[in-house]
């Protein structure tokens, strides 16, 4: 997922989402399956002709198995829908870009990117959006901006999420209070899902699509996340000096868990992987790259695991433990 190019140890990456709707059709919930099918056909033709995606792949949700659908939802952080008729996605083979027609919007462009590629991927997304808009005029009003089925999403139609691995901020209530209560800009919010909290991944997201320009939204997110990153770096250097013993103990336990467990639930696995990632970044662990650890954090999730590593074991926790045994085989502790 965030394993492309050179990984930034703390700032893992971004999810950019742009919602658009055509003025020719009712929004997906009110459209007939036939209308949605027509739209999906037009949309995929545009994406294929635009060369925006590397080896694009057209996926009709109705034709996918429930397992494959779950994978797509999990991978691109999409809302799960029961309704599938006429809906689908065009994805690139790298798994970083998608153009989706879902239950709420005609066009949902998603890009999973990292800090170094953010601007180039954002510009590519705008280029594709412009291309789609030339063939399929967007529903737009001067007053409400780009129109979407869900009112909070209209305006820019843009939503940004930034993912940061900040295990030491998660341990420090005082810093959390300062950052999340006092310094958090009003146009951003912190999302703490169980899944991400276990792996100490902080999700900072834009709160409003209306009232700001796209650039203001990007700048606000970038500036605040830089602050978080700097704070985590400060805590890391303090921690390494003052609490080396505790750190080594945590790393040893995490390593033991990943190496020898018979069963591992996703949260346990992600928590241990987070500790390994911290140890690796602080030079206390070797034999694995940051990119590989990032990949593991995301691929131990249920749908990724069952699709990428089909196993005879019906017990997914057992399959997860086996997968991790193999994946961390080369790790060694440097203390």
């Amino acid at each position: 997922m965030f394993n492309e190019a050179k990984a930034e140890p703390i700032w893992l990456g971004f999810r950019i989402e742009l919602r658009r709707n055509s003025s020719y059709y009712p929004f997906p919930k009110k459209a007939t399956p036939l209308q949605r099918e027509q739209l999906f056909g037009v949309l995929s033709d545009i994406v294929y002709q635009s060369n925006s995606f590397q080896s694009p792949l057209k996926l009709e949700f109705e034709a996918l198995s429930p397992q494959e659908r779950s994978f797509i939802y999990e991978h691109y952080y999409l809302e799960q829908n029961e309704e599938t008729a006429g809906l689908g996605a065009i994805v690139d083979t790298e798994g970083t870009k998608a153009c989706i027609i879902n239950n709420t919007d005609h066009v949902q462009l998603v890009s999973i990117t990292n800090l170094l590629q953010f601007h180039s991927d954002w510009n590519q997304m705008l280029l594709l959006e412009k291309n789609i808009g030339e063939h399929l005029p967007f529903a737009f009003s001067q007053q409400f901006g780009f129109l979407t089925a869900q009112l909070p999403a209209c305006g820019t139609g843009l939503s940004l999420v930034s993912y940061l691995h900040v295990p030491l901020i998660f341990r420090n209530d005082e810093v959390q209070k300062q950052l999340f209560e006092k310094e958090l800009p009003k146009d951003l919010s912190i999302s703490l899902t169980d899944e991400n909290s276990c792996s100490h991944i902080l999700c900072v997201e834009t709160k409003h699509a209306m009232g700001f320009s796209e650039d203001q939204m990007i700048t606000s997110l970038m500036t605040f996340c830089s602050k978080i990153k700097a704070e985590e770096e400060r805590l890391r250097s303090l921690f390494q000096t003052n609490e080396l013993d505790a750190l080594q103990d945590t790393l040893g336990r995490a390593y033991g868990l990943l190496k020898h467990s018979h069963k591992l639930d996703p949260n346990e696995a992600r928590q241990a992987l987070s500790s390994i990632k911290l140890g690796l970044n602080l030079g206390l662990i070797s034999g694995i790259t940051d990119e590989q650890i990032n990949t593991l954090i995301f691929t131990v999730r249920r749908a990724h695991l069952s699709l990428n590593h089909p196993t005879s074991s019906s017990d997914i926790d057992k399959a997860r433990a086996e997968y991790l045994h193999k994946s961390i085989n080369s790790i060694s502790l440097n203390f």
Partner: protein
Amino acid sequence: MCEGCPYLNERLGKGSDIPSFSEKENVCCVECGTSLAEVLETSEVGCSSCYQVFQDSIRSLFQSKPFINEEKARLLTANPAHPLHGGRKPAEEVEASISSRIVELNNALSLAIRDENYEQAASIRDEINNLMNSNE
């Protein structure tokens, strides 16, 4: 209070021409059939025409619900004609702001230094300096 005041008429038992709130909620979009009651309850509309049909109610929703930040909501209350949308228009080209580009480059710089790629670090530093100078 004027002679035709609907509230006075109502009190005097003469009825009113203005639909009550619940009657207004039954107004539907002719294109997709979505009613105002649905919009108010779910914050969702059925098609782009709904934005025209329910324009005033949608503006009020934006003022009363946390769909925009407090500052923007205050501006809207002070000036109802204040535009809600602050972003780009279809097909409009926008350049990335210098500040967000500087944040991005600073992070690229720290990565280049971490990897001891000093040649790349120097070129990133020059780019940052150029941007800072052009921003002054």
